[in-house]
């Protein structure tokens, strides 16, 4: 069993087979019809000939039969011509008169024969076919037979039959090709909406579960399939939504119990234990906040009209995190943020991205060193630290959710950089990371610069 990958090739092959079979069967049927028609004509002609011979049969006074053929008929049955023969038989099957040289009957007589009989016999190498009719004269019954040697049959009719394939057969070939071409055209046209639907389906992913395939233009045969696919997408969409909402709900529901824990610890009398617990709660709260950020980012869309001033965003972030840095004996420097640098994007989201980078940098830069923010006029923000830098083989890994080089290190969630990358993706902006010659990592964010505010 051949398996066809494409509907078009399947249709073409099946159509070729069907056309070949049809043209063969049709030719045979036509030639059979033609030959049976010529046989009928022959039989009728022979019956007529027998009748015309019988017309000239007369009964003499002595009761014997005599044939008085006019000369033109005698010529037809003459020996040199040899094509037609006749004979007159009595009721016992004896040949009374015959055009044959030996005076025998053309066909042996069958006593049960009816008024008109079509017969066929072999005489030497020749096949004789003809008719036998009953003729009554007075009290007596005679059989008048007329036969034709088929080897000498009418050439015209035989030519038509023989030339049938040659003359008619060739027409089927172009018709076949024309039908195939029309088939292919029809199918291509019919399948075009399906190709368009496939193009739309290519864009469906975990972040784009709202896309549905259009049903309007599709052929009704594939519509149930596409409809079912759309329903499957609905269920998938629902699944994703539940999952997203679960992350958000879970993080949200944890906030109040964590607040209770935090407040209880804050109001403890023994502050030595409290300080350690506070740090634990701090990192747990941080992770929860990041989970909520991720849940929010999964459904967030950047308004195409949104714009943000990178100088302002960076100043804001630096102002926000400077106290945190100072607490750890680390410093923050902001360079280049003297005048506005407008880019396409949501200021709050950009601020979160830069804040996550900054927190990351502060964590990794050693005490007494500086985390440097640089805003460049062409829409680039750089955040660099004096930490150990990032290994070449880890430059892709660091953006993965929950990836951490050292899982035992406290206070690291492995979420910060994945949030940064997600925000950048949403803004069609890019992020790169490299190690500086002076040591430490430098993250660069490239945004689409706007000419004016």
């Amino acid at each position, binding site marked *: 069993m051949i398996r066809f990958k494409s509907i078009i090739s399947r249709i073409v092959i099946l159509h070729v087979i069907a056309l070949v079979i049809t043209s063969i069967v049709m030719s045979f049927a036509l030639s059979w019809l033609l030959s049976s028609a010529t046989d009928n004509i022959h039989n009728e002609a022979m019956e007529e000939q027998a009748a015309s011979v019988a017309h000239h049969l007369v009964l003499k006074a002595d009761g014997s039969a005599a044939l008085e053929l006019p000369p033109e008929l005698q010529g037809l049955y003459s020996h040199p011509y040899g094509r037609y023969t006749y004979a007159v038989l009595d009721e016992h099957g004896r040949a009374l008169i015959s055009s044959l040289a030996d005076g025998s009957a053309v066909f042996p007589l069958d006593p049960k024969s009816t008024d008109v009989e079509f017969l066929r016999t072999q005489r030497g190498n020749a096949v004789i076919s003809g008719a036998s009719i009953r003729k009554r004269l007075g009290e007596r019954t005679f059989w008048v037979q007329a036969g034709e040697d088929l080897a000498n049959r009418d050439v015209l009719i035989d030519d038509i039959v023989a030339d049938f394939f040659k003359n008619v057969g060739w027409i089927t070939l172009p018709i076949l090709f024309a039908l195939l071409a029309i088939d292919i055209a029809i199918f291509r046209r019919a399948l075009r909406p399906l190709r368009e639907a496939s193009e739309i389906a290519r864009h469906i992913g975990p972040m784009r579960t709202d896309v549905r395939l259009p049903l309007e233009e599709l052929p009704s045969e594939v519509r149930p399939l596409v409809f079912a696919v759309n329903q499957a997408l609905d269920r998938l969409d629902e699944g994703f939504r539940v999952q997203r909402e679960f992350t958000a709900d879970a993080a949200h529901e944890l906030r109040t119990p964590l607040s*209770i824990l935090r407040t209880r610890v804050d109001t403890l009398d023994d502050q030595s234990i409290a300080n350690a617990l506070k740090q634990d709660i701090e990192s747990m709260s941080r992770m929860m906040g990041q989970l909520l950020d991720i849940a929010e980012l999964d459904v967030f869309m950047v308004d195409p009209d949104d714009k943000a001033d990178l100088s302002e965003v960076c*100043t804001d972030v630096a102002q926000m995190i400077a106290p945190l840095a*100072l607490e750890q004996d680390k410093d923050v*420097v902001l360079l280049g943020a003297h005048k506005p640098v407008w880019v396409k994007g949501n200021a709050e989201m950009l601020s979160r991205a830069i804040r996550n980078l900054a927190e990351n940098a502060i964590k990794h830069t050693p005490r007494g060193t500086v985390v440097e923010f640089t805003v460049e006029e062409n829409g680039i923000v750089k955040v660099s630290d004096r930490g150990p830098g990032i290994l070449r083989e880890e430059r892709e890994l660091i953006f993965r959710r929950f990836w951490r080089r050292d899982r035992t290190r406290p206070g690291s969630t492995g979420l910060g950089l994945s949030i940064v990358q997600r925000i950048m993706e949403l803004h069609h902006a890019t992020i790169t990371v490299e190690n500086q010659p002076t040591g430490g990592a430098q993250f660069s964010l490239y945004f689409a610069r706007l000419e004016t505010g």
Partner: protein
Amino acid sequence: MRLLVVEDNEELAKLLAKGLQAAGYDTDVFGTVAEARTALLMVDYAAMILDLGLPDGDGLAVLRELRHRKDPVPVLVLTARGGLQDRISGLRSGADDYLVKPFAFEELLARLEAQLRRPGQILGNSLRVANLEFDSRSRQATINDEPQVLSARETAVLELLMHSKGRVVSKKQVEDHIFGLSGDVASNAVEVYVHRLRKQLSEKGARVQIHTIRGVGYLIAEEKS
């Protein structure tokens, strides 16, 4: 000084009340929108700590009513909703500050104090960092309770820094505060005054440090030992 705490989680409400009492505030604790409405009409509170997700409605509704009748009582919103839109709608509804759960209790106290020390609010005018004190009404700085003599510009810088203790004040803010709209200001003027103030304070024995965050601004904090 009486505070209104609207928080439906009893455990958290109890802890807040306990902590606030320890910090010297009297508190009334309620858990519903209806109770909060009644309490606000009957008592003149110094400030309100408001949770948003309440069993009988949204805390923001109470806040909007309050602002609608031009009640200026400082409101610190306390909420589990930390999304961008939530924060924007919270501040637009008239919240003075916004703390997302879970929060550090000291931060709640600090933010509350900042609200209460705003001009016209109920807490005293005395701002303090370590042994340095600044009276925002008389604009007098004291170190170890000894009054100090500072120039008008130095005083202005100190005033701004003390009002924003723990936070970074941008250079622009300092410029605006000292010079107002008076126009031409030398680009290094702020640096000069901050430098002088820093020198003065350290000579007089103040255990504070004025940090310069390059490209960002200044921050006053207790000196690290």
